């Protein structure tokens, strides 16, 4: 690890000013990903600006019913919060499916969205990786890629976004807000991540020096009946090989509203809008759930060793939607 300067920010304006002055500086939240990457030499900041003391650790409801989650709220606090558990249960489930109790106590909402891929080539400095070193090549294409992307990838990068939380937030139309020295900005999470294209090292629309201040969940009646299912290679404490966040509103056997997002399939949490379009207005049956999954996964472009993900995600979507439909009709 390279030597670095350390500052603790007391307010948002101060934090933004400290980072703006130094393009090689990074915000330090929980550090669960950043410190890890610094130890591996993937991140080499000259300065860390510690934002954990900022007053961004609240979860509040606005008059419009939206839930505003501060960027430094820890995963644990988010998952345990009554508002989240009752109104967006899939979000609680997604957060609890990620990492470990210790890491969830440390990690923050803002950091979760900005965490980097766990692709083993990205974290191995001796291997080519376009995301880490633009133009060096992608080792995964011809190498190990059984847990790489099947949707939205390019020949430059096939890494997946590792977040569980992000999958549920994406399903629930979360909006990310940030501050820069010049002002403020926001973007829906579905537009927050950039397409991979030939610039896999550029991951989000955040302007340089921007600090995520909060994430807002608009009110969504449908989210109260939602579920997150994650499949991984051991029962706990592992990243997903496939996951689904889903919400379903069914009446008289017909889907009135649906939210669906997929995890571990793309460089970002994947909102399944094509599937949602098939679902809404359709009978709440496994046949239509499968048709919805197929509509979304038709665009899948598997590599030689990750084609199973298409089957996995199709089966997961059907299983989760079926469970939700059964719950609704009970």
């Amino acid at each position: 690890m390279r030597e670095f300067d350390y500052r603790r920010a007391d307010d948002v304006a101060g934090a933004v000013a400290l980072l703006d002055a130094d393009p090689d500086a990074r915000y330090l939240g929980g550090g669960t990903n950043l410190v890890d990457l610094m130890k591996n030499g993937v991140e080499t900041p000259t300065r860390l600006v510690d934002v954990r003391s900022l007053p961004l650790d609240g979860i509040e409801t606005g008059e419009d019913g939206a839930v505003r989650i501060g960027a430094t709220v820890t995963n644990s606090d988010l998952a345990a919060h009554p508002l989240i558990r009752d109104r967006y249960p899939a979000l609680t489930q997604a957060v609890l499916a990620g990492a470990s109790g210790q890491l969830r106590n440390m990690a923050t909402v803002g950091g979760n969205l900005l965490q980097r891929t766990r692709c083993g080539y990205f974290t191995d400095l001796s291997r080519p990786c376009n995301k880490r070193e633009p133009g060096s090549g992608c080792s995964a294409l011809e190498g190990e890629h059984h847990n790489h992307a099947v949707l939205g990838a390019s020949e430059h990068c096939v890494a997946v976004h590792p977040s569980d939380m992000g999958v549920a937030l994406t399903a629930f139309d979360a909006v990310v807000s940030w501050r820069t020295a010049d002002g403020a900005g926001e973007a829906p999470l579905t537009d927050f991540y950039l397409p991979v294209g030939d610039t896999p090292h550029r991951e989000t629309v955040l302007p340089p020096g921007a600090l995520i201040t909060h994430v807002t969940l608009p009110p969504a009646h449908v989210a109260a009946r939602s579920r997150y299912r994650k499949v991984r290679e051991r029962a706990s404490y592992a990243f997903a090989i496939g996951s689904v966040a889903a919400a379903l509103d069914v009446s008289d056997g017909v889907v009135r509203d649906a939210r669906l997002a997929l995890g571990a399939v793309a460089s970002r949490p994947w909102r399944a809008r094509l599937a949602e379009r098939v679902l809404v207005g359709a009978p709440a049956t496994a046949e239509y759930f499968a048709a919805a999954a197929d509509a979304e996964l038709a665009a899948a472009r598997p590599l030689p060793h990750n084609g199973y993900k298409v089957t996995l995600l199709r089966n997961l979507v059907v299983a989760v939607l079926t469970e939700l439909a059964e719950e609704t009709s009970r």
Partner: protein
Amino acid sequence: MTVAPQRPVAPSPFGTAHTRVEGRDKVTGAARYGGDIPFAGLAHGMFVLSTVARGRIVSLDTAPVLAMPGVLAVLHHGNAPRLTSDYVGMMGVRPDPTAVVFQHDRVPHAGWPVALVVAETPEQARAAADALAVTYEEEPHDVTLSADRPDAYAAEGHMPGVTEKGDLEAELAASAHVVDEEYTTPEEHHAMMEPHVATAWWDGGRLDLVDSDQGVTWVADELTRMFSLDPSAVRVRSEHVGGGFGSKGVRPPQVAAAMAAAEVGRPVRVTLTRRQMFSVTGYRSPTVQRVRLGAGPDGRLRALEHTSLSQTSTVFEFVEPSAGVARTMYDAPAHRTENSVVRLDVPSPTWMRAPGEAPGSFALECAFDELAERSGIDPIELRLRNDPKTGPVSGLPFATRNVAACFREGARRFGWDARDPRPGVRRDGRWLIGTGTAAASFFAGALPSTAAVTAEADGTFTVRISASDIGTGARTALTLIAADALHVPAKRVRVHIGDSDFGPAGIAGGSMGTRSWGWAVAAAAGELRERLVPGGELPPEGITVRSDTTQAIAALAAKERHSWGAQFAEVAVDVTTGEVRVRRMLGVFAAGRIVNPLTARNQLVGGMIWGISMALHEEAVRDAASGALYGGDLAGYHVATHADVPADIDAVWVDDHDPEDPVNIKGIGEVGIVGAAAAVANAVWHATGVRHRGLPIRPDRVLRAGGPHA
């Protein structure tokens, strides 16, 4: 002067639960492991490992690194002292050149130690190691093991490479039921929780070393030879060890620390990072195994062939002897086994928990399950019909052979008799349910050891032995063995271990530790008890009796000596997601006299969980392009977590006694894993109707294989 104890005063402590004698230290954090002991003036060493898989070091740009803050030295092949490596050590093998660091410019595999940076602080050492620029002349490499390697050759490791008798093809042709299948197991790593660490310093001409090892005698012997020292000039201590599983012998940290301490003239600690552990501390080779079984209509074997191909490095021949298990377990008129290896540009593999038996039993015991399926004979009945009376290859009598007793007891406890043999017909919600079984065995050997037992003037007893407690409970077991031999309560016995100055002793490995050390301790303690005169007075320094089991071990009659077991597993498989969960597991073992049931059950179940982990999770992925591991850390290499282990898991044991054996204690470190992965895999077949002949049974593989109602 005090009075020697009256005897007999205490019943044997064997067979009742005893908490660990060092337990309080372990739960309070007071137990000091290899990297926990403070030293004044300690400097820190960090390895630099090669990034190429084959080639030559052209240059190391040490000057900028030496100018970095706190850097004291950079050791590499250009400046390191020359070591001796032309010897055969106490384990009967030459040293793995991986440990004999910095002797030449060749790079035989990715992650080969090319330099050690020594600095004042760990942070400085790490930063400097990261900054060291090394240029290589890279050569094409080959790291791919496959069944059809023309360069594979039959090889001896600790056993003959090939055994054969009878006409295999003729017996197979005459068999009513034949199984001919290939089974594969991946590269697996020990992944003990404590990284390898060593702290060395030189006091005059004497090398003192504190490390984390599985045998201080072993490590001291190797360092003595490598550095051409007098045996009395090396002391190795290792009091608490955070797991070993075969990997904690002589590794680069001890050798590099000794070199560096001489170079900088102060104590130097070398700790491996987790990622470094994945390339310089050994691993279990992947295997490609073929099993051919031929049986008559009654299921009795006419032919058995088990071949196993494993890989080794270009600098060291290590054989994973997976076919060896067939030499113990089953006989047939035509019987052939072969262990072969191929040399690749990969790190040297080594012993890992039940070397040979763990992967070998997966292939053989799955093949037996397939034979049961094809012959319509119950898997347990099939094994009972093929339980040999003498060693299939050796022809020697078995000291004990209790496979049948384990199966009978296990079948009763597990409810095997009610099992419907049909696969793919039980469902619980989204899960398909199945059960499976497999046999287990592991060689019960002993290594010569010395021990000293002292009757102290205060009425207590002190045992000193160069034993090693890597989590086995050996320290507690030896306390009980001494108390039993002395006829005193265990609380009056103190056991000191992990110091090579206590005299030579065997290693914590090969399930030989407690048998070997217990033998020496019992011998010394028994003789001491004879020498103590009831009511007699003890001198202030007490009375010490020493033992050496070398002759007693050599005098053992030639027999097949093993521990035995039967494994049972129930699994749930969701073929739509590929998830497999073990719901219940039972192991029944026959392993001599169980000294401490509390720790024995723990260790046996721990082995069974290794079997779960091997069956479902563990796989080190070697990247063909780089020759290095992909994701070589504890996030990439999955070992079982708490959540992967069912609440309903247990190990029990049956009587296992050889009236001619002087100790009747066997090691139990390895038999617990043997057959466990096969039992899980056989249960997966029973659940789904699909055979998984390659491990681990990962979700992607289950999904690809499909199943009923998939």
